């Protein structure tokens, strides 16, 4: 039997992996992937809470839909900005972004 706690543990793990990836990676694309993992952890949380606590109202699922859409917009903008930098320097590592003090 899979309970709410299993889902929460999964999402907490996923969130930590994503956070670690976002903090430890030096490549902008890899950081974005870490952030996506964090957002997916949130989605698991929302849908699991919705299913186990209050299945009659779909608030959590609606929230998850909004998260998915906003995440897509965020990634589109981030990729565009990274590509813009990449075109100039042929590199997407954030350690090289040091015109100003990092």
């Amino acid at each position, binding site marked *: 039997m899979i309970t709410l706690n299993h889902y929460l543990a999964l999402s907490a793990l996923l969130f930590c992996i994503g956070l670690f990836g976002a903090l430890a990676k030096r490549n902008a694309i890899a950081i974005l992937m870490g952030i996506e993992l964090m*957002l997916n952890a949130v989605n698991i949380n929302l849908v699991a809470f919705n299913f186990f606590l209050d299945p009659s109202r779909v608030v959590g699922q609606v929230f998850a839909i909004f*998260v998915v859409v906003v995440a897509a917009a965020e990634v589109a903008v981030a990729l565009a*900005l990274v590509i813009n930098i990449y075109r100039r320097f042929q590199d997407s590592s954030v350690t090289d*972004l040091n015109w100003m003090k990092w």
Partner: protein
Amino acid sequence: MADLHLLAVEIMVAVFGLGLLVLGLLVPRSDRRGIGYVTAAGLAGIMVITFAMRELSGVFMGGYIIDPFSNYFKLAFLVAALLTVFCSFDYIEKMGFNQGEYYALLVFATLGMMLLASSGELISLYLGLELMTITFCILAGFHLRDPKSGEAGVKYILLGAMSSAILLYGLSLVYGATGTVVIAEIGQVAAASGSTPALTLGMIFLLAGFAFKIAAVPFHMWSPDVYEGAPTPVTAYLSVASKAAAFAALIRVFFGALAELHSIWVQLFIALAVLTIILGNLVAIPQSNIKRLMAYSSISQAGYLLLGIVSYSVLGIGAVMYYCLIYVFGNMCVFMAVTAFYNNAGSDEIRDYTGLSRRSPLLAAAILFAMLSLAGIPPMAGFVAKLYLFMSVISQGYIWLALIAVLMSMVSVYYYLMVAKSMYLGAVPEGSKPLQISPGLKVAILASLLILFVLGIYPDDLTNFAMNSAVTFFMP
């Protein structure tokens, strides 16, 4: 049918933004300077309508709150947006930006802030926050040929997205702990159940996410780089309005939904406030770039604003509201002058400001008086605003906190006056010409200086309004 008239302002802003986007496509490239004037006129019109509707209050579909508090903040955002547009005319023409996009994005950012200030439930709060953050990322990286601007955009979106994810995890935990996303209902459920571990954990995640958005130490790393790299008008708007919007949402969430946990979060906010005030002011001293200096100065301003949150009282919220508006005028005034200087001299370094008082007395006076207001010297409005904030923490017994804040205000006077010293006592550089400033910008600078003086001498009407709006947060 819902009460759509409550949303009048938001709908107008959204339609206006879309209209600007379309206008930018239809107008030939050579005539696009006009779009700036259209934006200014439109924002001014919406501002007048918002002001006329300031008494409007109600709740739209149970989750979108229109009250004096949100109307006050919306007016502040519109004022900031209008001043930013005045700031932008020459700057972006020089940069060769696609102007339709630029102004449309400014308007959409304003819309995001309005959503944030009015949101009564977590989904619209998140949407508003993201609308604001994402548009600011695009604006920060708008200057495609400048590597600094691109870097600012990438840094802002990576850190902004990460902080949003952290905040969102907190929101999901709060939803799980209480089973609802409506802020008022969360407050009721939390009051009935007391503080549960899930709710406390969610609160901590929320606090970290909001601290990122308001650039409180130790979550401030992004702000100096983004402020320095972004186009100057964008920096101006980012530093004032996004901070005010984040504070509005923070007050809604922490005073509305998480009031039950206030004994815990007040402690955390005290730590944030002390760190922010001390570090922001001390690190500002050695800065040599004026935009970076203003970045650290605005970090420390966020610290002062946190004092109002710490006090957890009507006086505190009222003081935060008043301070936000004064901060809008003060900071925008400095940034308008910085933009005007950049348009002429092409530099943001403080050493190039030497002898500015003889090249352009208006710009020098604007920077001097606006900085005095930011530092909190009477008779400028900043003094009254800081006084209220300090009074609010003293009334709760945190005298040591007020002492630190006053001490650090003295430090801030030092670095503001270093700029003034270079402007007034420094030698005029060889072969420099008097500066050309467009009449629109001149009027905007003079108007905001005037407001800073007037509000410093007659603050009563505004503070009374702010205090009356703040009362709603403490009604059962």
